[in-house]
């Protein structure tokens, strides 16, 4: 989704001229578009009075920011320690095989983005996968197909 200038104005209005709100603005923009389009970064630099290089510096440093468009569905596989020793890698590989993309990428049709994260703090549920914000505790490689089908169905409903 490409942002409209008016919408970017609305998102940055309350932070105008406040460089220290940089991370908050970027979070608001990403909440809206699911990624940080280049024109949004330029807009932020101008609105907050921060050099563009610093905006890029922050946007690339933190993991929750994406400079690539993300899919309609986001699949996150947790690889915290508890998930790791209970077989999280096999779950991630299952997603990679099903979706045909490695972790960190979006499928060519723009439907799915696959991400790995270093711990979601829900270790009692290990191994854990989160698809479109829904938690799937005690995930296994064998359940990947059903989980993706559920995401697909959610979109139609």
């Amino acid at each position, binding site marked *: 989704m490409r942002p409209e200038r008016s919408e970017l104005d609305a998102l940055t209005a309350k932070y105008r001229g406040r460089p220290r709100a940089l991370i908050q603005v970027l979070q608001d923009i990403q909440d809206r578009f699911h990624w940080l389009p280049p024109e949004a970064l330029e807009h932020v630099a101008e609105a907050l009075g921060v050099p563009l290089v610093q905006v890029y510096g922050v946007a690339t*440093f933190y993991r929750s920011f994406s400079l690539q468009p993300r899919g309609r569905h986001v699949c996150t596989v947790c690889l915290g*320690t508890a998930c790791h*020793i*209970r077989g999280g890698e096999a779950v991630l*590989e299952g997603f990679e095989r099903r979706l045909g993309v490695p972790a960190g990428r979006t499928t060519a049709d723009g439907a799915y983005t696959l991400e790995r994260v270093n711990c979601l703090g829900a270790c009692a*549920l*290990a191994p854990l996968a989160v698809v479109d914000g829904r938690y799937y505790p005690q995930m296994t490689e064998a359940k990947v197909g059903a989980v993706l089908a559920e995401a697909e169905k959610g979109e139609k409903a």
Partner: protein
Amino acid sequence: MTSPGTRLLVCAGTGCVSRGAFEVRRALEEEIRRRGLEREVLVAATECHGFCERGPILLVWPDGVFYQRLKPADVPRLVEEHLIKGRPVRGLMYVPPRGRAPAPLMKDIGFFKRQRLLVLRNRGRIDPERIDDYIACDGYAAAARALSEMTPESIVAAITASGLRGRGGAGYPTGRKWAACAAQPRSPKYIVCNGDEGDPGAFMDRSVLEADPHSVIEGLIIGARAIGAARGFLYIRNEYPLAVARAGKALEQAREYGLLGTNILGTGFDFDLEIVRGAGAFVSGEETALLASIEGRRAYPRQRPPYPAERGLWGLPTVINNVETWANVPPIVLRGADWFAGLGTPASKGTKVFSLVGKISNTGLVEVPMGITLREIIEEIGGGVPGGRAVKAVQIGGPSGGCIPASAFDIAVDYESLKAAGSMMGSGGMIVMDEDTCMVDVALYFLRFAEDESCGKCAPCRSGTAAMARLLAGITAGKGTADDLARLEDLADTVKRASLCGLGQTAPNPVLTTLRYFRDEYEAHVLDKRCPALVCKALIAFSIDPERCVGCLLCRKACPAGAISGEPKKAQAIDPAACIKCGVCLTVCPDRFRAVRKTTPARSAASGPPAAARVAPPGPKDGER
């Protein structure tokens, strides 16, 4: 109106919610209405009980009956039997791992019996979204006392006398930190709560923020009064959406009640708090990096001293403590420093919350007095390792900590003894590992994590963790040599001594402790090219026992690599060249056949007693962990 005599408390923590607690709650409400019991029975949400693996959890009050793993379909029977006929449903109760009979009452369950709740004092008693619940449990009484009856000096003195040490990891005395900041002549000053819990395997901060956000806010108000701050920040991980939402709601309620803002409780004291969401960087948990992040910059740590108490946010004096530390403050003010100092050991006072996870029967969050032994936590509270397997080690303190072997489980849990064992308290993640966990693989896991999360500012951490991860990857791939072990130790020493911040300084700990306690496993990898725990893919093989295989073809259908072939109803075979070692065949092979074998080469005669190739016993099936 009559007040309801029975309360059904449904746990609303992340663990229970993800397993359908809200659906169970809806079903309960409907059933209660259908039966016309609304006047007698109240259904309420409560905070996390910590027994997350058993969710959704329901506690019936006042009788204390504990139900677990509920489904909406169980609800009509439960209401009919327990509430109407007065016969608690045994089939929905918790059965201890080494017992047959269910334990009906919460107080009789081993997981809860040995705990001492201080930080988690309101566990299961309050609805985290209702400030009145918190106030009914003595909430904000400590803040009121600190603001009206105590001087800033007497608050600092109480915290110092209590012996409270920072629960974020290193255990710095909290009172000393506050005193240093209070003594600074410059103002304004700031108060910060570090809720950037990035340690893999730890989730106590998440739970406290979700379950009892007012306890943290109250601690922050007291801290602000002690050092003279008018503003504070709650920095919470972006990965914890429920914690952000609950803390936000709690702030609004506190403002509404005049507990935040100007002229708090009519005492003339002004203080307000703001939530800052983290953006996903492990290093943000380091205090100087976290402050940079609040300022809207990249989370780079800087050299200390000067410490934040002297030069913190925007160069001004700042006290920063983590979530669990703040939650400890109100009870100390309310019940006195002596009471707190009476708990724990001489150097480590009070309690510590641990997240007990991994290969353990009773997974969840536990709060214990300092000084309890590891064995008591793992055996008595955790119920030991499931599936009859032997416990091998426990990893404590995340990437900053280390692995402690089962032979050392009698050590007391406090800051000093964990450090002496090569580990550290860290934030309190406790990951139990059994004989099916490869310690070299675990070390590689943590080093990859450190490499991935290093901010890159200093070379020893940036390049050193990468070089260590490369060496470990070679060892798990069967390409390591005995010299690699010496190289690893040498690198670990350099990274430890030369890194700028805690991330790099502690990153080698998982390697050093596994080398110290499990050297034989490293040697098996480099000398014999075998992985005794049957984990490292390059060193294991899958095969099918023709004697046991009946040719049901389940494995063939499940194999993602098409590596299994053979005639139907006859023994199948795995093509080792095509096998990707994902292990799906092993998990789908029915228990009554157990035809799939996972093996590692036999130990060579030169390095130990000859033995047959190790064969994996049948593993636990899905849902049986």
